[in-house]
């Protein structure tokens, strides 16, 4: 457990959105499991942060919720991207790419101009 990293501040929302874009409507547990899988189990999702983050995205209108039934017949609350949410994934993805490009330049070997 000690070799796992907590999710960095601010990136969780992006991961949630991207997950929902990939998987379609998904419940909280599914989202958490998917994020941890995608990270190759190097990330550990704190559930308190996850649900607060989901609520925040809902308040901001990026996702909508609905109660449904899970794959093994459990009642669960499903989260799905709204139209604004889909736009936000594209935009946030670009922004993220932009930031990582810049930061990676600082760590690029031998290039100092």
């Amino acid at each position, binding site marked *: 457990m000690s070799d796992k990293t907590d999710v960095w501040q601010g990136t969780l929302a992006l991961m949630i959105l991207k997950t929902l874009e990939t998987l379609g409507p998904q*419940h*909280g*547990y*599914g989202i958490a*499991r998917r994020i941890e899988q995608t990270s190759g189990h190097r990330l550990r999702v*704190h*559930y*308190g*942060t996850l*649900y*607060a*983050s989901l*609520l*925040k995205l809902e*308040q*901001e*209108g*990026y996702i909508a919720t609905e109660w449904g039934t*899970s794959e*093994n017949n*459990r*009642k*669960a*609350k499903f989260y799905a991207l709204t139209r604004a949410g889909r736009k936000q994934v594209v935009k946030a993805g670009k922004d993220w790419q932009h930031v990582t490009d810049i930061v990676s330049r600082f760590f690029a070997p031998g290039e100092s101009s």
Partner: protein
Amino acid sequence: MRHVRALLMRFASLFGVTKGDGELDREIESHVQMLTDDNLQAGMSPAEARRLALARFDGVESVKEAYRDQRGLPLLETTLQDARYAVRTLGKNRSATLIGILVMALAIGANTAVFSVVHAVLLNPLPYANPDRIVTLTYRSTGGSFSGNRAQQISVPDFVDWQAQSTSFDAMAYSSTGRGSVMVGTVAEYTVVSRVSDGFFRVFATQPSTGRLFTRDEVRDGAAGAAVVSDRYARQHFGDPRRAVGQTLRLFTQSVPIVGVLAPAFNYPVDTDVWFPADEAGNRARQQRRGNNFRAVALVRGDVDLRRAQSEMTTISERLEQQYPDTNRNVRVLATPLQREMVGDVQSLLYLLLAAVAVVLLVACATMATLLLAKATARAPEMAVRTALGATRARIVKQLLVEALVQSLAAGVIGVLIAVWGTRALVAISPPNVPRLDEVTINGPVLLFAVVLCVLVSILFGLPPALQASRGDVHQPLRQTASRVAGGRGNRTREWLVVGEIALAVILVATGALLVRSLVALQHTALGFQPANTVVMQTTARATGPDWVDSRAFFRDLLSDVSTIPGVVAAGAMMAPPGLVSSESGYWVDRMPTESPLSSAQPAVMNVIAPGAFAALGVPVRQGRDFADSDMRDRPQVAIINEALAHASFAGRDPIGRQLYAGYDSKDPMTIVGVVGNVRQYGPAREPQPELYMPYQQHFYNGATLHVVVRGAGDPAILGAAVARKARERAPDASVRVTTMEALLSEHVATPKFRAWLLSLFAAVALCLAMAGVYGVMAYVVGQRAKEIGVRMALGATARSVLWLMLGRGLMLTGVGLAVGVLGAIASTRLVSGMLFEVQPYDAPTYVGVVVGLGLLSLAATYLPARRATKIDPLLVLRQE
């Protein structure tokens, strides 16, 4: 946008609009179920699967907590919760809370009241279309004996040149204002009348509420055609503004129809009730470049800033100086925003009051803080419990600040009520020179000020105790009343606050004392005349001929009538009695220069006077004689000078028989026939100036209006009525205004009296609060150290040594406070030096008096609790342990 949406949803959740905790519980339950299912599939036992699933949640409650924080607005929720709690806590200690709230309410009320006046008079823009672009144009002298003087009145020829040469203004106009005798129906009364030139109403971009303004023809033709009246005048005389239009005003022989009524807010020149068109053509033809009898206003163009307008006027006045060196040497033009011009000296008066009430507020805050600090110590266990239960320091500080805010808001509500009353009181006792008092109300900005004040104040008095209470060690207060020995940081804060209170009180009391001493000195100044038992009646004679020559017969007859009234000792008349003098002009000795720039003349007050006026005023004739009825128009011109003029121009030599020139209505020499004592022409605050008196039968430039002055035995009111009756018998339609010399004088001390009284009041309040603070702290210290004192006494300390132990602390604080206060007062009373009369800002006796007085009071406030300390029964105290 997204943020706003989120905020709205969070706010809505406060009222239970969104789904509550139940839904979250179900969601978490389903999450745990699914996690458990997966764990089971991984081969765990059911119990183990469920346990691990729950463990993975790191405490379900903390997840819920994070969720709730995101759902609602935790800051707002806890604040409301704190407020509810504060109301309950404050309610428990009702009398202390009430006293605190009342103290703060008084302070907030006083501040709000003063601010409402400051707002209306100084801050609120004038009620015209472009208030910041309206300026007055006045003269400033840059050399000669009038150097540095400002003259508000200007001449028409100069104005005409300004108007022709300047480009910075949209409109420019001149006006002349005076009290004229105006008749409506059969009643004549003195009315403030202004004659205004063509652009006047354009400067203010004003429109009449009824009727119309002047037409160009009316302005060009002069005073014949039309009158515009104020809303107030229309209501007073005709009941309704609409009924005023079409009515007729009479000025002695002339009838003028009212063509329009102005909007209620229009008030320029200040207090004007009737506006006539100026006789522009006549003024152009007859007015001289030295006839400074007009006031100029202008509207600066929207795309020109004031500095550029000013520099243009400076250029023009320099050009005029070249062109007319005789009259315009050293004369410059000043463009001053109208509001600043109107406010004048009142600004410093109002800022003084604002500063004084602000100090009262600070003292009140300090007193509140000391009281709350004492309470904070008592509440230490409560805070310790809260801390132990997990409250952070910020949370506790916030809770206590909310408590302070609740108190200060309650105080604010009462304070605004007090301010409603206080504002009315302030307006009622304001000196007459404060403009725009009718606009003073508790309006939006004033209320906003009160609210901001409440918040500020709650931080000021709430923060020290809040920091103190939250600093607490968790364990110490919980161990019951352990080790209550003197010292600790709370005490130190309290002591600093007391030092501050005393220092602020010293500053206010010293300022108040200086102003009161100035007032007393002012009221006991030798004026040079005897104001008691003297009636002054302004009246205007009907003059039919040119140049008002025939008005003099009316006054001569009236004076002989008045002298028959029983009890009359002396009667005379003059243009400007002491206190009503407003300007000076120049004179020359022995010869009049052919080129006669005013700057080569000696300045003196010019007066026109009838025989008997000196006797009526009680002004002694030191040399020579008073004027007589024989000093007529066809006789050689004579003059009387005062001692100041004799000293200025004839030091040591005999002035009788010498000749003076003033060039008013004749260029003939005036032979000095008498010297009279000095009077303070500008009121008691200003030294007597040189004055030149001319007989009323030889000079007529003042027009048909004179002030009759009558000295007589008995009630001045009865005497005044009798004098007015005599005037009405001679001229039934004459306007008269009767007052007494003492009433005129009181107008001059109205401002000093106003500020001395208010400052004393504020100083007294600050003093009481500071003493309450000293008493409170000492009483608290005694209570806190009761056990220690008990032990000391049990070990043999005498009552005397205990008394000194307690007194010593208090006296040290007082001493420091007094010292700081005196230093502060020396620094700050310099700011009021312009308001002092015959007292220096660092007047030693005043300071000694203040220090001794405050020291004794503070000693008393310390002594009472200290003595209680000596009454402590050691047995009783020790048994309590």
